[in-house]
Each structure stands twice: as C-alpha cells, then as structure tokens.
C-alpha cells in the first residue's frame, strides 16, 4: 500500500513549516496568497488526502449537474430514480444546487443542452450506465470533475462510486453455503453490465473457496440475448439454490419457478442483490444484499466536492459495502446434511 502523505512532507518540499501548511489548508490567515497556492498545488501533486479541500469548496455556492438516462428518470419509480433522489438529498444537506440533465434518444439534443448550461456547473455526477462511445464524448468535452455512480469502466478518467459487487455477491453465496446449500446456480447476463460480471466473480470465488463446483447448466441468462427481453430458461436438473445478480432477475426466476409449480423456499432457495424489487409481491419475501443507495449517493457527492477542491489528485473508485437483508426466500438445509 502506498504510504500516506503527511503535511510534513509538503512542508519539506516547499521549505516551509508544518504550521504554515496546516494554516494554508485550513484557509486561515497568516499565509500569503502565492504561498497558499503553492502549498495546495504541492499537496495535490503529492496526493495528500486533504479533508479541508471539501471544507473550502463548501464556502461558495456549488451547482452539480446530475446526468442520467431519461428512461430511468421518467419511470414513476426506478432504482436510478431513487438513486437520484438520494443524490439530491445529499446535495441539499450541503446546500448545493442540482441541475438535472436527462439523456434522451437524441444524443445531439443532450449535448446541446449540456454545453449550453455547463458554464454554471462545478461538477457532474452521472447515474447509471451510459454507452461507451457517448461516455467518452462526455468525458472528453467536460472540463469539470465527473463522478460516476453505480457504473464504471477501467480507463475512464474520472472517479466512480460502486456497490461492492464482488464482496456482496461473495457474501450472499456464502450465506447460502452456510445454510447447507452445496448445489448453487447463478442468474445473470454479464454481457451488458460490468456490475453483473463482478457479482459473478464474487459468486465464483466463494464457490471455489468452499470447493464447490460451478455447474455450467446452472448458470442462467436472465434475458434473451438477441432481443434483450427478459427470459429465463430453467435447467432440467435443478440446484438447491440460486444466487441472482439482481432482485429483478430474482423476480423473473421466481415467476418461472412458480409457473413450474416450484415453491420458494420449500423446493428451492433464492437470494437476490439490490434489495430493490419493485412491483413484484416476491419482494416481501426475498432475502437480498442491500445496495445502500444513501451511502453511495453521499459518497458520490463527497467525491465530486473533493475533486473540485483538488482537481489533480489521482482518480479513485470507491466501493460501498453493505449488509444482507434477511427475509424468507432461503431455506436452511443444515438439518438434512
């Protein structure tokens, strides 16, 4: 791990005292403007984690642009609309204005609007996945800091906040194993979402650690790969439990199982990821890894503020961890084994 940069190192690099560095960072008087600038630049250059940067950024009125797909923003309730609500609440607590930029069908329209208003915006938070080409274009044309929320691709020159996909999926798999399940399948289509891929790896890792086989026929796609419409085809021989890459796919799976006359958890255990299942009665029974939207939104707002205060720090990705919310969709098999 990289060694933490201290104020002393900054002071030494500039041949000044620690007190002066501290005063400069805290915005106190007694430090000349030029020296203050030098200190802040040096701190950023050395990668000093400067908590005061956020404090300093707070003083002026800050406007954040929040970008998300119009599709997510116009559904009466969606995961990302709720993420947006959390982001607005986090911003409001800090007295920050938020400007909503909806990404519709017409990319040019979006850019026209984005560029027209961007002069007043200090930083951006992008909620949810955006197609790669467009994302490159956005990062290329915006000079202001950008933080991605619940989505990232290696190589993007920006910060990101993600749910701890790998750890979360590991935990829900481990939860099933600890309740006596040995034959465990996975539901999710990784091709469209990095989140799902990471969750799949978490599942694999846990299975391997317990020396359990990853059975090909138990890895189910949750949509038709050609039409992208939701579709789950159940295998001939069933495992005793499924890890689902999202609550949505858990809901789909549940519907399919019900059609076949299989009961959850009596015949089969199901565990989900998100703790956000909308408009399916199964949500009241589904045990799931809770995605802490409030904490993620809070982290994103904090990150963009830090970035505004220290533009040259290396880019970071933060993984927000959370807990399993236990309901009744998993049956314990311990008694039988």
């Amino acid at each position, binding site marked *: 791990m990289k060694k933490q940069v201290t104020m002393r190192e900054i002071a030494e690099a500039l041949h000044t005292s620690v007190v002066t560095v501290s005063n400069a960072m805290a915005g106190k008087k007694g430090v000349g403007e030029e020296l203050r600038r030098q200190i802040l630049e040096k701190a950023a250059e050395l990668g000093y984690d400067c908590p005061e940067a956020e404090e300093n950024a707070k003083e002026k009125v800050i406007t954040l642009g929040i970008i998300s797909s119009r599709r997510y923003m116009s559904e009466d309730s969606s995961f990302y609309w709720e993420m947006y609500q959390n982001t607005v609440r986090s911003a409001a607590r800090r007295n920050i204005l938020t400007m909503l930029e*909806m990404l519709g069908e017409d990319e040019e329209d979006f850019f026209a609007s984005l560029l027209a208003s961007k002069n007043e915006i200090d930083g951006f938070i992008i909620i949810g996945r955006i197609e790669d080409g467009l994302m490159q274009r956005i990062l290329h044309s915006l000079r202001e800091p950008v933080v991605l929320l619940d989505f990232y691709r290696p190589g993007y020159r920006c910060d990101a906040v993600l749910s701890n996909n790998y750890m979360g999926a590991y935990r829900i798999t481990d939860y099933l194993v600890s309740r006596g399940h040995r034959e465990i399948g996975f539901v999710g289509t990784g091709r469209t979402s990095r989140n799902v891929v990471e969750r799949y790896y978490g599942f694999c890792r846990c299975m391997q650690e317990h020396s359990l086989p990853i059975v090909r026929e138990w890895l189910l796609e949750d949509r038709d790969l050609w039409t992208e419409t939701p579709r789950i085809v159940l295998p001939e021989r069933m495992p005793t439990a499924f890890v689902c890459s999202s609550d949505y796919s858990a809901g789909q799976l549940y519907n399919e199982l019900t059609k076949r006359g299989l009961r959850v958890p009596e015949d089969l255990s199901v565990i989900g990821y998100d703790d956000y299942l909308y408009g399916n009665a199964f949500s009241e029974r589904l045990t799931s890894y809770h995605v802490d939207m409030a904490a993620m939104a809070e982290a994103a707002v904090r990150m963009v503020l830090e970035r505004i205060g220290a533009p040259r720090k290396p880019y970071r990705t933060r993984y927000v961890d959370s807990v399993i919310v236990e309901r009744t969709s998993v049956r314990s098999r311990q008694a039988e084994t």
Partner: protein
Amino acid sequence: MIKKVTMEDIGKRLGVSVVTVSKALRDQKGVSDQLKEQIQRTAGEMGYRRSSRAHNMRVSHTIGIIIAERFLEKHQSFYWSLYQQLAKRIVEKDSTPLLEVISAEKETDNVLPMIIAGQRSDGIIVMGTFRRRYMELLHNTPERTMPLVCLDSEVELDRDDAIISDNIGGGYVMTNYLLSLGHRRIGFVGTLLATSSIDDRYLGYIKALMQHGIEINYRWIIPDRDRASGRLLESQEIRIPDSKGQTGEVAPTAYFCNCDLTANTLIAALDARGLRVPEDISVVGFDNHLPGGVPNEGITTYEIDTKRMVARAVSRIFQKIDNPTFSGNVIVVGGSFIERHSAVRAGDPVPYV
C-alpha cells in the same frame, strides 16, 4: 450508414471549441457575429443534422425549482412525483431544471434561496407551500430578477400566476359521493391547519354536508398527524369515535380521508377493532397515490390531474420569461373521481336541501 456530423467535427474543422459551436448554432451570446455566421455556414456544408433543439433555434432556459425539504422525504412522495413530472416537462421544452431544496432552518430564518440571490435561473417555479412569511419573501424581495410561478402552494398569497389543485372541489365530490350512497353520518380524517390542502379538502366536505342539510359533528373530525412536525399517526394512535348506547351517540358509517395514505391507516385501525371495510364501514381517500410504490387497489379516491398542473406551470413560466410584464391569474386544476371498492351503499341517496 453515414456517420453523423457532430458539433465536435465542426469545431475541429474551424479550430474552435465545441462550446463555441454550440453557442453559434443556438444563436447565443459570447460568439462574434462573424464567427457565428461562419460556424452556421460550415455546419450546413458538412451536413450537420441539427437536433430539434438547434433546429428550432429556441433559446434554452434554466428553470429554478424551489421546494421545502420536508416534501422530499424518502421514497416516492406526492411532491417527488410532481417534481419528476415537472423536470421531465422542462426538459421536453429544451430547458434545464435547477433544483434548490430549502431547509426548515432557512425557511425559519427567512434566508433567500441561492437561485434568487445569485440570479441563477431565468424563471422560478415554487413547489408546495412554505410558511407565509417565506412566501412573502419569495414574492416581494427586490433581489428577485426573474419571474415566479407557484405550483400547488397556498392561493391567497399568489396574487398572480399560481397553479393550484382544486382541493375544495375534490373534497366536495368525495363527500357528495358518500351522501349519494345514503351515508348521513360521515367523518373527516385529517388534522386541520396542518396543510392547506387538508383544510381545503375539509371545506369541500363541509360544503357537501351543508348542501344536504347535515350538521357538522366535530367529534367526527379526526386528526391524522402531528400539526407541528407533520408526523403521521400510526393506526393505533388514530382516535375512532365509538357508538355509546347510553348517550345515544352513534359512530359514523363512512369516512372521508384527506389522503389515501391516511385512508390506509384508518382501514388498519378499523380492522384492529374488528370493523371491516366496506362491509361495516365505508372509507374514501384522496390523491390516488400511496408512497413507496404501494399500489392503491381498493380505495375509492380522487386524483388531481398533476400532469395538467405541471403543463400549465411550465407554459406559464415560459410566457412570463418571454414577456416580463405578463401577469396571468390563478389556474385551478381539477381532477377525476376514481371508484373502487372501499365504499358501499347504506341506503337511499341523501337529498339536497
């Protein structure tokens, strides 16, 4: 497929920034006329397909939306839903919504919104009600340079340009409905003086009773929340009037609740006493909205046409931006009655006086 020409392509060709291209195509300030013309010509030559936005050459506006923190609780509330529709509508009008949430503290201390103080938008839509003193500040402050429209806030302060929902009319419709089902003993559930929409819905209730020659029984006006904090009561805290044999006091056969959420709570409270809805008691609500995505399947209710309110508010603010001297009037938007299964006939319709 031919590759779409983008603003970047035009910028590259002319050696100017994308922002400059965008401004020139939208005929905005900050670009010299000569360069503007050159950019527009080049765009034409390169076959730049103007988006509907650029094509209309419509100036895009920033619309400030001001709302009290208390209305933006967790999950999809009435105001979140209204804000969502509003934001969508503003975007459809090629403009951008800028949201400012006013904390209770700022409201109490009469601190001017940052959007107004910093002149950060072209127009302002105030959503929901603030304290009277704060509403007055928003209306009267000389620092406000942009026009203002009120959406669903208290009417008497909005001397002009307010879009309000017809809560009195809705309360009247719902109470009349119960009367037409033969209910004479009708209670009202809602804390008076807590919000202006509760008060207005109550007034509609009074009007309907009055027109049917029925006296108000104040013991049947039942609080549903704490007046100061707005905290909604739990079902076990709801005070339901009992029939008392010795005093001859009888309980209502039907209740009009000021919102569906309260109707839900009341139904749970009645259920706890072994009273079934609608077999034993009829209950109707208001809003056609339950938070957190709980579907409203059973409650007969009244739905305010929020889509129309939003459309009116947005077109009104644009009118005022285009013409600063424009002053409209109060627009009252009604709604529709939605009959489900929570109320049943108790006898012949109660006749009007």
